[in-house]
């Protein structure tokens, strides 16, 4: 009997401990059931034998106390669950009624908004996101519409957060990025929490210019420092105004909910920043990738000659060439293939490389890989799956930039930077420094090589090909007097008959310093305007007073 009693006690204790340790894996109902079972076991455990010399009344009373004690233990276990182990989930639990009314913890307003959230500033110190004290809370504001959406949105009472506001939340709220000891002391003394500031590589004035150049067009512009991977321009159109998503008062949220719904219902998806989350067919800009793969593998050299007599038949399908500058010439070099964007030449190069090597080098270049960045980046792909490239037609299409390839503008800019950075692909970044409330830099981001898929020899040959396309080819519009400029345009046919216009390029005094990727979505401006935008923003970047760093 005493064995059973002790065993029941031990089991009850084990059950409660287990239930509390694995609280995040069990539902409320399962926990309540475990609690009930543990209570029954504890009741069994109260049947301990009491000395018979104690009067019956007293023994009965001792048992009653033990039973009452079991109930207090059950209540205490439940309190530990609610107040400690499951407290985060309970604290943040939110539900939305069918009519749009939101039930959420009203403390989120007073706790999140009582933090003086850190500021976000651009490379010149211009304010991108800041806070303003209003009574007991801090109101978040993004003064510059051209950079606001890069910071993301921050709406703790309604829609949570996105962008840098989300990925750097711990630093912005002061949960990290400042002196840990000071943080603990502030917390203990209930002092208002102060967030750390972010310093970006972004240049507000260049960003503003990119927005002006984009105008009403749908698309994206990314400009990157080729040596570091620091992003100077990160423009997307259409975008959103985070000031209208933020609300300091749960009860007065009509403006925010109305604006949010208009964003969600907009078919152009303004909430989706195209520069990092947009995926597009790259068109002829992708010929640079095919060239890089071919040269790296030793399959081609810039002066190798291919036949292009206006068309080629692959697997019975006729591919027509429209890009030859001289329709009487049938032999063209790879260099001329890039300069004049000859599809027939690149279809043959693709076939010469072969599916296996093409796919392998593609993975080395970062296709199908998660790009480490301050914001989430959509994964670029060569094809939906490797098997899709087994057909010669598909491989040929891919080689000149059609087929199932999808790339993000950020990734195209990274590839372009790699060609002029001796084959080293830099990890892109927007946040360069974290600064605590006393102005001390607590974290400095150092440029890092993400991967080195091609040799510096290959890289400089592709760089030459792109310079050639500007000097003696179809990208002459990109030329800027007095600078080294290279580039490649692209027109990507999409399923619905419209076409995306692309430009990738770079600029420098003697050595290329900045790379750009521009995409204009189907129908919104021709290839000429993509080149113009790319050229103008590159020129502004190289001549901006801050270009020294």
């Amino acid at each position, binding site marked *: 009997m005493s064995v059973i009693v002790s065993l029941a006690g031990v089991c009850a204790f084990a059950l409660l401990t287990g239930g509390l340790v694995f609280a995040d894996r069990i539902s409320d109902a399962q926990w309540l059931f475990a609690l009930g079972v543990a209570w029954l076991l504890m009741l069994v455990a109260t049947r301990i034998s009491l000395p018979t010399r104690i009067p019956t009344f007293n023994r009965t009373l001792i048992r009653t106390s033990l039973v009452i004690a079991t109930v207090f233990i059950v209540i205490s276990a439940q309190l530990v669950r609610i107040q400690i182990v499951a407290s985060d989930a309970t604290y943040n639990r939110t539900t939305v*009624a069918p009519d749009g009314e939101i039930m959420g913890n009203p403390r989120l307003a007073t706790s999140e908004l009582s933090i003086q959230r850190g500021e976000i500033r651009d490379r010149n110190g211009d304010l991108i996101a800041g806070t303003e004290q209003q009574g007991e809370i801090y109101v978040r504001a993004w003064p510059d519409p051209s950079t606001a959406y890069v910071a993301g949105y921050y709406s703790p009472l309604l829609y949570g957060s996105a962008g840098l506001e989300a990925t750097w939340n711990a630093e912005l709220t002061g949960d990290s990025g400042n002196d840990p000891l000071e943080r603990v002391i502030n917390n203990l003394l209930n002092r208002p929490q102060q967030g750390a500031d972010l310093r970006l590589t972004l240049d507000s004035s260049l960003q503003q210019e990119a927005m002006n150049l984009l105008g009403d067009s749908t698309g994206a512009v990314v400009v990157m420092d080729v040596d570091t991977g620091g992003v100077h321009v990160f423009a997307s159109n259409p975008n959103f105004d985070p000031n209208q998503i933020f609300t300091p008062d749960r009860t007065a949220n009509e403006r925010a909910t109305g604006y949010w719904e208009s964003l969600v219902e907009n078919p152009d998806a303004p909430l989706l920043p195209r520069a990092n989350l947009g995926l597009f067919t790259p068109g002829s800009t992708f010929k640079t990738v095919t060239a890089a793969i071919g040269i790296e593998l030793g399959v081609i050299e810039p002066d190798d000659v291919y036949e292009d007599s206006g068309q080629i038949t692959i697997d019975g399908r006729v591919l027509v060439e429209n890009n030859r500058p001289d329709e009487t010439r049938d032999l063209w070099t790879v260099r001329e293939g890039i300069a004049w964007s000859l599809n027939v030449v690149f279809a043959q190069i693709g076939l010469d490389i072969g599916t296996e090597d093409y796919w392998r080098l593609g993975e080395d270049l970062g296709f199908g890989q998660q790009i480490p960045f301050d914001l989430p980046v959509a994964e670029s792909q060569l094809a939906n799956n490797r098997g899709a490239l087994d057909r010669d037609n598909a491989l040929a299409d891919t080689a000149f930039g059609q087929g199932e390839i999808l790339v993000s503008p950020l990734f195209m800019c990274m590839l372009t930077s790699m060609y002029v950075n001796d084959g080293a692909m830099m990890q892109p970044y927007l946040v360069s420094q974290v600064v605590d409330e006393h102005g001390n830099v607590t974290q400095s981001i150092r440029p890092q090589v993400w991967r080195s898929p091609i040799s510096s020899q290959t890289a400089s040959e592709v760089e030459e090909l792109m310079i050639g396309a500007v000097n003696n080819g179809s990208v002459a519009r990109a030329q800027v007097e007095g600078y080294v400029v290279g580039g490649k345009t692209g027109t990507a046919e999409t399923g619905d008959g419209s076409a995306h216009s692309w430009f990738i390029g770079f600029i420098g005094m003697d050595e290329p310093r900045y790379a750009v990727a521009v995409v204009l979505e189907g129908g919104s401006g021709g290839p000429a305007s993509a080149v113009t935008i790319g050229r103008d923003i590159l020129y502004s970047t190289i001549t901006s007073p801050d270009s020294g760093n």
Partner: protein
Amino acid sequence: MRTFYRPTLRLTEFYLLLPPALLAIVGMLMIFLVPTGQVAWAWSDIWVSLAFAGAVLGMGLTFGIRGFRGDQVILPLTATLAIIGLLMIQRLHPDLTALNARYSTLAQRQLLFLMVGLAVLWLTVMLAGPLGVMNWLKRYKYTWLLVSLALQAATFVIGTGPPGSGAKLWITVGPIQVQPSEIVKITLVIFLAGYLEDKRELLGSSWRIGRVSLPPIPYLIPMGLMWAASLLTLVVLNDLGAALLFFAVFLTMLYLASGKPVYVIVGLVTFALACFGAWRAFSRVEVRVQNWLNPWQDPFVSGYQPIQSDYALSSGGILGTGFAQGNPWYIPAVETDYIFSAIGEELGLLGTLAVLAMFFLLTVRGFTVAMRAQDGFVQLLAVGLTSIVAFQTIIIVGGVVRIIPLTGITLPFISYGGSSLLSNFALIGLLLHISSLPKRV
């Protein structure tokens, strides 16, 4: 009897009363200073605390002068719980007043109730001996039963409750609103103690019909009536809290008087079946059960209160936000049913566990008083009174943390409410008096 009046120092009690007295002063200063963020204070800010500290310390002193030789731990425990409650109400007062003007006198009224309650406790202890209270409580046991039934019947006829609840909880007499169940819980215990003591032998025996042994049926009829009365409290008055409390206390006393767990088991099973029936029959009970199991099914209406309570408890963590630094006033009825959640938010898990521990200590202390008592009636009375405090705590806190459905009863000594404070202090007064009676060796 001369030795009875010889003064005594009661040093243990004095030392144990110092923490609640200091808590009163420190806590009140926190409440006043935290919102302003300043350290400037005036004596007028803490006169309430000084009055409380003076009252409890003075009470201990007069007990000593009077030669009172009862328990020295019960009063400090009660005082600590009471001051936590008073501080919480003082702290909620400005927030609740900002919410609704009807709360504008909340803190003053609670202070008045508390002071009157302490006076009731003091008078009970000082006068119970000379008046021979135990004798007439025992002798007029059926009168107490009649008083109980009459009060419940009156509640049924002229009682009112919170708008829309369908419950009948209060009787209004002029400007005063009384909650009869708070009185009934004590008169009922007095009756049960007298009745069970009379029939103790018989209840412990059994009838034999052939080979089957049965409980002594005629003596169980009043027990059946008690069972029915509890259920009627539930169904007719819709006062689940009081019904549960009456029944739990009754079963405990029956168990203690008879020594037979079978009564408890039969009682529990039949009561559970009846409650199950009520759940199926009455939609309002069904809503209550749904709120218990998943308040998120209806987060804006019936589930609103438990969800707000969960938010408050979860924001407390281990140490709590600190007095006057949380936002427990989001919970409807935070000053009564949900005051435990307010403690959880501002004093954290340490605070809630400390409060629970104090209630458990009080229970154990009360049971110890019962064990030491000589007379059977007094023993049962002490058990009954103590289990009122224990079960009332379990029922309301269990409801707040949702291990059982929520029932609207008060957390003893802590929740806002005059009837509750007064009756609970009277209860403690009786318990203290019992502890001073001649003891078993």
